[in-house]
Structures are given as C-alpha cells and as structure tokens.
C-alpha cells in the first residue's frame, strides 16, 4: 500500500512531525510505502501530519485515495496506526 504524506507548514508545531512520520514508517516497514505527497502521484490514502489542531495544511490538490487520515498531536499515533491497519485488512 502506498500512502502520501502531506505536512502542514510547521509554524509552531506541538510535536516533531518528521519523527512522527519516521515512527509510522518503522511501524509498517515492508507493508506500507510512505512517500512525501506529490501532486502528480496517486495514493491509497493521504496522511496529513499537522503540528497542531488548527490542521491548516492545504491538501486539496493531492490525490486522496480511499481515505484522508489526520494527525494533529503526538497522541494521534495510535489512531493513525489503527486506521491504516483497518485499510490493510479490507
């Protein structure tokens, strides 16, 4: 499965967004390919990693696949993992 990763612009992030993406990548090593989202590419899901609950990233020009998944805080990790696992199991 290929997931596009789109970040907010990081004006005042409450957690390390890059580290969050790395942790996810490690969690799904060999199962999900995470790629910095490109407007020309297609994905099965789009993951938005926002630094805060404002969640202001503009992702309208990206392929959203079957789902758009949001992370807005460090604690979003478990929820994101769960949502991705559900997608894998479908």
């Amino acid at each position, binding site marked *: 499965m290929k997931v596009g990763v789109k*970040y907010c*612009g990081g004006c*005042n992030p409450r957690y390390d967004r890059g580290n969050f993406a790395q942790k996810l990548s490690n969690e799904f090593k060999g199962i999900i390919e995470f790629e910095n989202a490109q407007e020309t590419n297609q994905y099965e899901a789009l993951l938005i990693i926002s630094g805060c609950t404002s969640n202001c*990233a*503009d992702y309208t020009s990206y392929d959203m696949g079957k789902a758009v998944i949001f992370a807005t805080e460090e604690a979003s990790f478990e929820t994101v993992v769960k949502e991705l696992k559900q997608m894998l199991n479908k």
Partner: protein
Amino acid sequence: MSLMTKEQYVESLRKLNLKVYMFGELVENPVDHPIIKPSMNSVGMTYEMAQHPEYEDLMTVTSNLTGKKVNRFTHLHQSTSDLIKKVKMQRMLGQKTAACFQRCVGMDAANALYSTTFETDKAHGTKYFENFKKYWTMIQETDFTVDGAMTDPKGDRGLGPVEQSDPDMFLRVVERRPDGVVVRGAKVHQTGIVNSQEVIVMPTIALRPEDKDYAIAFAVPTDADGLFMIYGRQSCDTRKLEEGADIDVGNKEFGGHEALTIFDNVFVPNDRIFLNGETEFAGMLVERFAGYHRQSYGGCKVGVGDVLIGAAALAADYNGAHKASHVKDKLIEMTHLNETLYSSGIACSAEGYPTEAGNYQIDLLLANVCKQNVTRFPYEITRLAEDIAGGLMVTMPSEKDFKDPVLGKYINKYLQGVATVSTENRMRILRLIENITLGTAAVGYRTESMHGAGSPQAQRIMIARQGNLAQKKELAKKIARIDESQNKK
C-alpha cells in the same frame, strides 16, 4: 525555474556586480564576507524551507499569474487563508533564523503595487498594472529576492519634498526621456538589499500635486548603474571578524542587515515604471505597503520571540533557577506577550478583503494595532529575558579566554552552573540572549520593532482614522438613553 534552491540563490548573487561599501572600502565579494554572510544565510532559508516537505505548505503556493508553484515570498495573496499563511510562514522562519530574513519587504511592496497600479490605471488610463504584472511574472519565474525601498532620508521633517533645501532628500525624477526616467536620491534602512537581485522603489509619504517628480515607483536590478550601498553598522558586528568566532557571536549562522542605498542618476526604462506623477496614488501605495508590513511583524518578530523565550528558559535550566516561581511566571508573561503579537497578526489577516485588482489586503486597523504592540512587547520580552539570564550575559569573558589553556580552566570552573550542564553550553545560551537583546540581532528584534514599517506615531494616526469612534459614541448614547434634542443649542 519557479523555485530556486539555496545553492542556486547564492550562485545568482555571485553573478551580480553589486557595489557595496563597508568601513570605507568597496566589498569585493559580498557573498562570502563574514559580516554579510549570516544575513545571506537567513534569506537562504526562505529558499531551503521551500524545498522541505515539512515546510512547503507555508513556503509555496500556486501563482495567480502563471498557475505555477511559486515561493510565497513572490505571491500575490488571493484569500484570507493566504494572508494567514504568510504570517505563519514568517513565524516559522523567525524560529529557524532568530533574525530578520529580509524577504518580506519585496512581497509586501508587490502586493501593494498590484492593487495600486490597477486603481491608478483605472483613474488615469495608464499601463502600470500591465507593467507590474509583466515584471512580477519575471520575479516569480526567477524566484529572485526583491528589496522594497520606501524610506527617504526626509531631511527637515517639518518640510515637504519640494520645500527641502536639498531637493534630493526625497528620491525624485531628475530627467524624463522617451524611453524612461532618470532618478536621484537615497533610501535609508534598506533591509536585505545586499542579498537581493532586484529593488522596488516607492514614495515614502502621501504627496501633493506640486510633488509630481517625487511620485515615482519603479524596479531596477540591484547592480544597476549609479546604484550603490553603504552597509549599516550593527552593535557587536566586528565580533564576526574575530578568528574562529563562534560562541561570542551568539548566532553564528544567521543575521540581518540594512544599508543606506544611493540612487545616483539611475536610469529606469518605461516598462519598469509603476507610478510616474500621479501624486494622489502615492498615499494609497504607502498606506497599503505599510499595512502589509505591519501585519508581517505579527509573524517574524513572534518567531524570534519564540527563540528568545526558549533561550531564557534554558538559561534558567542551566543555572538551576528553573523551578523558582518568579522565573516560571516571567516565562509565562513572555509567552503571553509573544502570542498576543501573533494574535493580532492572524486577526488582521483573517479580516482581510479583496482589492479591485483581486489580491487580498489586510484589515488596516488590526494591522496597525499589531504593529503598535510590536513597538512595545519585544522590549518587555527582552527585559524579562535579561532578568532571567542574569548579569553574566554581559560580563563573562570572551571565547578566546575560554579557550586559553591557562585561563580556560578558571572560566570553566567558576562559570559552571548546574553540574550536568557544560560551562560552554551555558555561555552559548547567554551569548544568544545577548545577541538578540543587545547584539547584532537587536537591530531586528528591538529598534526595527520600534521603527520598521513606521514608527509608533504612524500607527496611532491610522488607529485614530480607523477606530470608528463615531459609532462607539452612538453605542454609548443608546445604552445611556441619551436624547440629544434636550441639549442646549
């Protein structure tokens, strides 16, 4: 090429034939000069972050002129969301550089010119809007850094441009030719001009009909014939020239700069002219530029404030005072002040509106409130940072003494704070606070906060104009059940 890399940006600067003077001498290689280079690195971050997936959502945007992805510093704002993201971008870059990254003036000048040229053409049948669109499309395609030059020397402040004993105290047209104009004058406080490929020049005040030669707006390359710069001094600037300078400069990688910029009979071709004699539009241009730039300060200064608050907290951690209630309270106060600045930057953006040309203008009242707060709060934030840092910030020995084989061990021993923190790290954080509060970066964080984008009184005039006092009186009358027909005639 709509987006340059930092390396391409630096190389493009090398190709310029800039005339920059410092300490009485022509600088042969501005790009590698140890005093200038940190300021170039700050501008470089505006290119570097645009390539970074974690920051591109703020740093890049789709151009309304070309439909291509461009750096937000070359963007003409198309929505309130664009205005908000501009402020967020500035905060982020302030955090990354702890300095002025210099590229805002060009962006703010462009947005002011885009709408003003449109309305000037509508009134006068001129072609400035087309000129400007063509010019700015070139800027978006090349991703150049553009300086925005507004402030004239102004001579006797009690006199207008034509009344000055020296008519060059405001930049003016001295010759009109079929193919363009020749201008003479100077622009003071030019932030980032040495790191810019282009400069946009605008009038500095609202003008009267007799000031026709002063109603001139245009763009030229920064290495145009007749244009030269005299680099501005900053407190502690020559520390950067010391061998191996690192700890003592406080911020080794980043900085900002200003320069006195002279236009000594500079030729401007017709297609680079955006206002030429339409005096009644000078005020509109100045007001719109100032409005955007007052909004900008609600982002960039906040980002530097974030670094200073962090530095003050670390200074307390490193000397063991971090648990003291008054230290905690001072850090809360600093944060409160900093976020208040940010709040007004965001607010004036959220309340923005479309101009006749289609780009978005900020809310003028809230932008002026934002900047008025910026003339005050960074001073209180620096006062609190110095309070927490302690006197050692300005009394500790030099880096050279610290590295001296004999003296170093004494400094290491007696300047130790918390045992688990190295003396060097303690010195580093104190020097960073010194840099922002009274060193080279204080130019940007303190005095520029006071006078940049207009001195405090300029905002108070705008607040008085925009404050809607008549409506407030009506509100009070209604609540107080006042019947004015009962007043004495």
